């Protein structure tokens, strides 16, 4: 999996980036930070377990993560997936 593909997915989810040694990406919903993940600054492929670690931090299963990267899963779909897992309970208006 390419780093650029994951960065495009973060853009699609409107994640907020914090540039440091790596990029920390925060997902905010209804004004509240809900979760975060990180991705290397480098270009090229994500090696070894990194795609899996990012997927787990995003709270997605493998199929959902594939959809996120391949495009069908958008921000609204992601919010729905997090809601179903109870991650947005305290952020709901």
């Amino acid at each position, binding site marked *: 999996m390419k780093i650029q593909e994951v960065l495009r997915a973060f853009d699609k989810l409107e994640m*907020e*980036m*914090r*540039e*440091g*040694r*790596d990029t*920390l990406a*925060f997902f*905010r*919903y209804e*004004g*509240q*930070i*809900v*979760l*975060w993940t*990180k991705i*290397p600054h480098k270009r090229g492929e994500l*090696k*070894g*377990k*990194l795609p899996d*670690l990012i997927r787990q*931090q995003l709270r997605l299963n493998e199929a959902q993560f594939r959809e996120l990267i391949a495009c069908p899963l958008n921000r609204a779909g992601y919010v729905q997936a997090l809601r179903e897992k109870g*991650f*947005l*309970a*305290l*952020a709901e208006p």
Partner: protein
Amino acid sequence: MSVAEPQLRRLGEEVRQVRDFLVSDLSLKLEKLAKRRLLLLYSLRYPGLRLRNPIAISLEDDGAQVIASAYDLELFGYGETEGEALDDLRHTIVDLYLTLRENINTLGALPKQVWEYLADTVEEESRYENPRSAARF
């Protein structure tokens, strides 16, 4: 041959299959566990921030790099060596600490729990005015 013999043979075969499956499944899990090492992180190596209590870390070689995971913080670091992975994780912990501190009023449930843990664990040394501010979004 008794009527029960074929059934016993089938049962024996099923038991063997279950045993083989469990042995193979457990072997894989043991192999993964053997590659994992647990340790405690005692320092962030960052001016102005010190750890009151150590942070539990898991180190694992995934074949492509070493991964350092801090499960309590939902964070990981990586590098070609254990030292690099730990150093990367230290930087990430500092980045997260500073970001959560600056967004303390807009933390959801999970970030709030992590912040409470970090606030208990990380101490800001008074001789340093204010550790570097996190970049704002």
